[in-house]
């Protein structure tokens, strides 16, 4: 090892040049970085929710619609000439935009595109509810009455009280990367309409909007947070070192590590997900520790002038530090790599690239700092400066020895409260809940869900296993039964299927007699109705409900929420019904898809991954500690503060009501990985002190004196770094920031207060 260090110090310029080249190379890769906002891409490719979504889009077209709601709170709601003219205008405008697919009825649903199916004495009439803007009161009243009688679109297109109406339009299939532009375009149009000063209020939501806004927020967040965290680091470094090199060198290390990491992600084709936007902050906050350790040690040795030559001194620093630095990096890395136990690509990527970034930070610290220090002019004399928190550290050493019982009692109480909290822990992968409650998107979504059937899609695809299978009366009736069962749930706003339309046609062809509002009596009749419809309506009016061979049916469900527990409960309650009505042994196949289902599967995977990655990280870190310290007992003790901190983390979530989501799910393994460093530093030092023959009390005080500072600095950086996330525009980031910050505080307290007490309990055995 020393030879390698020697070589680094002999060729400092070459080392710097190499580092610079690597950085330029990485930076050049960064232009390939792309942002992934598609929620389905957060699922592994083998997940049924992912596969079914593809199948759904292939068979029935995408159900991800952009939704615009118009609400008029005045008397009579939107049933007035002005509002209806706006409906017509906006519909025409949407139809003309190249960003939208407007080939079939279900591509653009609005009050002015939907069709009324009506029976007359001798025929069937299929015509638009609105053929142009109605001009007279009577025409408007007629429109209102027809909407109500037809029923299928009530609450779906027009709210039952007539106060509002919606537009649902399908973006072109290949425009996902343009969702933000599409949103801006629609926003501008809506603003123009609002500027005319009518009483209509417009709200825009739907999955394309949500994904588009994510796509805008994510890079903006990264750009915005970088300077904040840099400023924080500069401040902390200045307080610690008060020299230009002490501030700038560590910053250079972490910036380089960040660029290398992002370059690696780009080169490997890993996209940026919402959670991986936090990686740069993470690397800045964690990566800085090694550089700080290095510089502190170097300065100490320089102060005591222990080595005659700068090169010898630097070799000594490197030699002393490489092992503990490697150890802490390995344990932290193990914490992050344990995220590989999750099936979800964003979490896996987060773990892998965090580990990669940490490795880079270590490598760059060991290369850049010695090389740079070799080249920079040597300072004649280093002043000894009393570290900033010396008073506190001294106080700490004495206090913990004085009040062991109180400390134990405090942590015991904390543990109890936390365990109680864990029992209340919830999971929620909702897409909408990722926005803060005051965010315009979330407000619009809430408004639309209040007035209409809901903005979250849930889809059932039922394969009858044979051509023309869906025309069978029994099958059609079961579709209706399933819809009725679904609609019992108050969070299900509406469902629609081909069976409903066939019922309506049956009624229409029997002189609109409500008694005939039932599914056709025979398969042939159903086929003939559909043929009949194809003469009056457009054939693709139903392409979203069934396949051309009449084999596969699709029930489209609108839900008022995408909260995990609602969807999970609904799916659970329907399982027995679908098994009964569409039995597998008779060739039926029932598949779920849509945003609601994606959220459901995401949640399951978050929980599974959570448990697995926690188990893996605890085990891995425990084994590493055992190997490092060589004693089972010490390894066990090393695990106590982090385990406690992680327990408190989940307890807090349960108690405060923060659900596990794709971001907060990261906290456990992250806290473990970062927090265990404190324990390792502390134990390492304590171990050395006691090997040197000091008593328990002396050891504790000395340990605090020497590593207490470094741990405190680390805590400040990590807590400060993650608190920056409190300014995030996205809710999960904010929550994750607060949680990690709080957990690191607990971890610090557990290390510096609880540890000495525990070590005191077993002082006879632990003394080596």
């Amino acid at each position, binding site marked *: 090892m020393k030879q390698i260090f020697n070589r680094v110090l002999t060729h400092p310029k070459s080392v710097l040049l190499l580092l610079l080249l690597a950085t330029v190379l990485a930076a050049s890769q960064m232009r390939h970085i792309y942002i992934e906002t598609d929620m389905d891409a957060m699922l592994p490719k083998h997940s049924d929710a992912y596969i079914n979504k593809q199948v759904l889009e*292939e068979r029935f077209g995408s159900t991800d619609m952009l939704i615009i709601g118009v609400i008029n709170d005045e008397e009579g709601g939107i049933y007035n000439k002005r509002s209806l003219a706006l409906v017509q205008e906006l519909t025409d405008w949407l*139809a*003309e*935009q*190249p960003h939208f*697919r407007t*080939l079939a009825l279900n591509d653009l649903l609005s009050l002015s595109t939907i069709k009324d199916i009506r029976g*007359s004495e*001798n*025929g*069937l*009439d*299929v*015509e638009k509810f609105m053929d142009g803007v109605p001009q007279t009161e009577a025409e408007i009243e007629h429109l209102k009455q027809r909407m109500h009688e037809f029923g299928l679109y009530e609450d779906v297109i027009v709210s039952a009280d007539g106060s509002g109406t919606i537009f649902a339009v399908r973006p072109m299939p290949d425009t996902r990367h343009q969702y933000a532009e599409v949103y801006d375009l629609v926003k501008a149009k809506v603003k123009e309409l609002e500027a005319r000063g009518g009483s209509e209020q417009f709200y825009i939501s739907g999955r394309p909007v949500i994904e588009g806004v994510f796509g805008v927020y994510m890079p903006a967040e990264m750009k915005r947070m970088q300077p904040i965290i840099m400023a924080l680091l500069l401040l902390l470094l200045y307080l610690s070192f008060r020299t230009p090199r002490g501030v700038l060198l560590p910053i250079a290390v972490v910036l380089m590590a960040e660029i290398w990491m992002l370059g690696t992600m780009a080169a490997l084709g890993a996209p940026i997900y919402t959670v991986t936007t936090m990686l740069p902050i993470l690397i800045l906050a964690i990566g800085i520790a090694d550089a700080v350790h290095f510089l502190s040690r170097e300065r100490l040795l320089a102060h005591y002038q222990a080595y005659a030559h700068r090169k010898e001194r630097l070799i000594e620093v490197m030699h002393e530090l490489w092992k503990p630095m490697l150890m802490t990096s390995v344990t932290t890395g193990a914490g992050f790599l344990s995220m590989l136990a999750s099936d979800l690509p964003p979490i896996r990527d987060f773990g892998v690239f965090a580990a990669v970034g940490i490795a880079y930070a270590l490598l760059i610290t060991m290369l850049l700092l010695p090389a740079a220090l070799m080249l920079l002019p040597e300072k004649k004399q280093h002043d000894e400066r009393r570290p900033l928190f010396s008073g506190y550290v001294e106080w700490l050493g004495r206090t913990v020895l004085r009040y062991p019982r109180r400390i134990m009692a405090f942590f015991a109480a904390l543990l109890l409260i936390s365990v109680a909290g864990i029992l209340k822990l919830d999971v929620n992968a909702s897409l909408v809940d990722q926005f803060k409650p005051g965010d315009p998107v979330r407000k619009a979504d809430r408004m639309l869900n209040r007035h209409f059937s809901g903005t979250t899609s849930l889809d059932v695809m039922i394969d009858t296993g044979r051509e*023309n299978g869906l*025309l069978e009366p029994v099958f059609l009736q079961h579709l209706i039964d399933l819809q009725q069962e679904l609609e019992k749930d108050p969070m299900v706003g509406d469902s629609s299927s081909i069976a409903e339309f066939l019922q309506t046609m049956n009624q229409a*062809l029997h002189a609109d007699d409500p008694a005939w509002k039932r599914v*056709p009596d*025979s*398969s*042939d*009749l159903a*086929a*003939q*109705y559909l*043929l*009949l419809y*194809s*003469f*009056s*309506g*457009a*054939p*693709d009016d139903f392409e979203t409900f069934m*396949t*051309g*061979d009449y084999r596969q049916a699709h029930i489209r469900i609108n839900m008022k929420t995408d909260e995990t527990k609602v969807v999970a409960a609904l799916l659970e309650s329907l399982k027995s019904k679908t098994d009964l009505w569409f039995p597998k042994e008779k060739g039926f196949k029932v598949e779920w898809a849509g945003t609601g289902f994606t959220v459901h599967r995401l949640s399951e995977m978050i929980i599974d991954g959570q448990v697995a990655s926690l188990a893996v990280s605890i085990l891995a870190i425990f084994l590493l500690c055992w190997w490092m310290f060589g004693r089972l007992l010490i390894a066990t003790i090393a695990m106590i503060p982090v385990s406690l901190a992680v327990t408190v983390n989940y307890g807090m979530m349960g108690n405060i009501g923060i659900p596990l989501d794709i971001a907060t799910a990261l906290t456990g393994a992250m806290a473990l990985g970062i927090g265990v460093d404190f324990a390792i530093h502390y134990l390492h030092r304590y171990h050395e002190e006691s090997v040197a023959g000091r008593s328990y009390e002396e050891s504790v005080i000395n340990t605090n004196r020497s590593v207490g500072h470094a741990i405190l600095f680390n805590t400040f950086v990590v807590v400060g770094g993650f608190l920056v996330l409190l300014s995030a525009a996205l809710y999960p980031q904010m929550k994750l920031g607060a949680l990690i910050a709080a957990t690191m505080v607990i971890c610090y307290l557990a290390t510096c207060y609880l540890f000495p007490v525990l070590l005191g309990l077993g002082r006879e055995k632990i003394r080596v």
Partner: protein
Amino acid sequence: MKNMKKRTTLLILTAAFLLAPPAYGAEPTGLDIMKRVDARDDGDDLIQKMKQRLVDRRGSVREREMISLRKDYGRDNKSITYFLAPSNVRDTALLTWDYDGIEKDDDQWLYLPALKKVRRISSSDRGDYFMGTDFTFEDIKQTPELEDYHWKLTGSDSIDGHDVWVVEGEPRSDELKKNLGYSSTRYYIRKDINMYIRVDFWDRKGQELKHLVSEEIRQIDGIWTAMKGTMTNVQTGHRTELTFSDHHYNSGLSDREFSERMLKRGYRDSSQD
């Protein structure tokens, strides 16, 4: 006999038209050419079998077979179509009285055997798609309503060894564009027989929408007939292939073939007489 005579007259007229084109030198205008297309003889009545193949972008196919009878009444015409396959719509029949111009809506009746009832169906917009095919009601007419378009001859070309006129038709008003669903159309018309063999359509946003290609053009009973027509929607990837066979032109179909009674009775081979 009466039919024979009429047919002969027509043949002579057609021949005269073909053999004595307007003097060269003055190129015809787009409208002139479209008028020739409109005037092309397609018989006074026709019985033909038709096979529809609807192919979606995934390649799955839905097939229908039908037999249809048509008779001209001046510029109006009546037609009746009986479904032969698939079996669940067999004996379904459609009767259409198609009036020239756009002032009067067409009349349509459908007989549903499972319901044993004739139902009148509301007339469709010209831009509405027809029977689940890629053809709109406007497309299935032999020629579009000439007065609704600006016709412009943009040049000549050669398709499969035939010289063609290239004529572009743009609907005259935004209202018409909206109704028809097209912002522009382009016809490729064979110079020798005044029949279009390819049509391109652009949607209201100005994007390429559909292609119609007519193939296997041959003379039957002296009348130029395309045995196959394929309409491909390039946006949806869906296409409709129509194959025609068993043509009988000018067989003197009687008026009662196009009545509600026949609609219910269903198709019998003997109805050809």
